[in-house]
């Protein structure tokens, strides 16, 4: 078991952002956390990595407390914010985080190639376009050799070709035994995952495989299934 969540509640300004979430997620899977903006995906990811204060409930990652020292070296995290040093160059950002994660210089080169950032090597991160910024942020999350990746909207703003390439990378990571939790507001991205978690208004409205979603809702498209589940048609 990679992730266990029992009765998780998060409140911000007396408003429930996550409402009694319980999940059990296995290792070596790509898990798509899908829902519209404001559904609680980012808050759930932040609670799983230990950067979100929770009101009640229990979260365990590989049996450990989120944010604990033993766990942090096993986690790769891309936040929704770009979380880059905008006054450093692309290479300086990657070199610094590579050193923190214990990744080699060769790995930095691989990431630059993989995310088509080589030509921007010496550019100041603050001068990058939105898509380039997202790629660099994702590159930092992929630098180390963690067992579990939390990627919050990793493909937002990317062109379809790069998006397809990245999904290939995610699949390759899964094939070598990694677990990936990937959020997206794009319903079609759920179809690329082994497990789908559909969220709305801080609640999980579905958790299972694409096939079981289709069987349960009798819909072929995830978006159609989401509408059916959200409108209480099930």
């Amino acid at each position, binding site marked *: 078991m990679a992730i266990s969540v029992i009765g998780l509640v998060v409140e911000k300004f007396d408003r429930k952002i996550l409402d009694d979430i319980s999940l059990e997620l296995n290792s070596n899977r790509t898990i798509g956390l899908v829902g519209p903006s404001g559904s609680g995906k980012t808050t759930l990811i932040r609670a799983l990595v230990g*950067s*979100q*204060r929770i009101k009640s409930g229990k979260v365990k990652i590989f049996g450990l407390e989120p944010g604990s020292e033993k766990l*942090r070296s096993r986690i790769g*995290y891309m*936040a929704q914010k770009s979380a*880059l*040093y905008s006054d450093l160059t692309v290479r300086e950002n990657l070199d610094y985080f590579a050193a923190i*994660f214990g990744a080699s210089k060769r790995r930095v080169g691989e990431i630059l190639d993989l995310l088509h950032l080589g030509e921007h090597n010496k550019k*100041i991160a603050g001068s990058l376009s939105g898509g380039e910024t997202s790629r660099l942020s994702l590159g930092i999350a992929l630098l180390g050799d963690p067992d579990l990746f939390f990627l919050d909207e990793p493909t937002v703003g990317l062109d379809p070709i790069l998006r397809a390439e990245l999904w290939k990378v995610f699949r390759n990571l899964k094939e070598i035994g990694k677990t990936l939790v990937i959020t997206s507001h794009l319903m079609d991205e759920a179809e690329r995952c082994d497990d789908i978690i559909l969220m709305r208004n801080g609640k999980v409205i579905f958790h299972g495989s694409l096939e079981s979603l289709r069987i349960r809702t009798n819909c072929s498209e995830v978006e159609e299934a989401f509408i059916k589940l959200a409108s209480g048609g099930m």
Partner: protein
Amino acid sequence: MIISRTLLTTRRILQQVRHDHRTIALIILVPTVLMGLLSWMLSDVPNAFNQWGGPLLGIFPLIVMFLITSVATLRERTSGTLERLMVSPIRKSEFISAYAIAFSLLGALQALIAALVSINIYGLDTKGHTSAIILVAVIDAVMGTALGLLASSMARTEFQAVQFMPVFLIPQFLLGGFIVDRDSLPNLLNLLSDLMPLSYSIDALNIALSDQSLGGQYWENILIVLAIVLSALILGGLTLPRSSR
């Protein structure tokens, strides 16, 4: 604590400063230029530059380093890099130590330049205690860094961090013996001034700028300031949140 992660982070902070030419100018030039302005203002008043300039040599680096450190650390939080780091293998103590080392180095450089220029160009009379005066100025710059780190752990935005300056520094400036001799303060205020690190650094500077020999009192003041700096750094590390609301 893993030293290499601390030093890597120190190097990264210094790299950021290197890219920011205005910050370099602020760090290096502001206290030196302000000391020059003071010396010019007081050029026709006998002994006044020594009386006011000596303590200010400790106060200017304190203010500049407080502001730069608190805003730089807050920027880590608002940009999301602090969250990324808090999820990575780096420890809070390594992060705080890196900031303390990086900005203390810059602060020490700043204080050193301001002191050397004040003594050799503006004519601050050190009574033969040049290194003792430079040491206090350097320690005050480090104190500004430590207090800035502490303030940033309490603030949620850069706006709040800047507003912490009057809270952390102005009372010290008023009660530290710069305007009125500490012994002349009402009892309660005198007691409060005993709790403030700047009081001890101004005491140390006054001893160094007087005709008397340095003696144990000077070193006692230095040790008290260093103990408060260390406490502020530890407190800054303890109050740095790994998670937020």
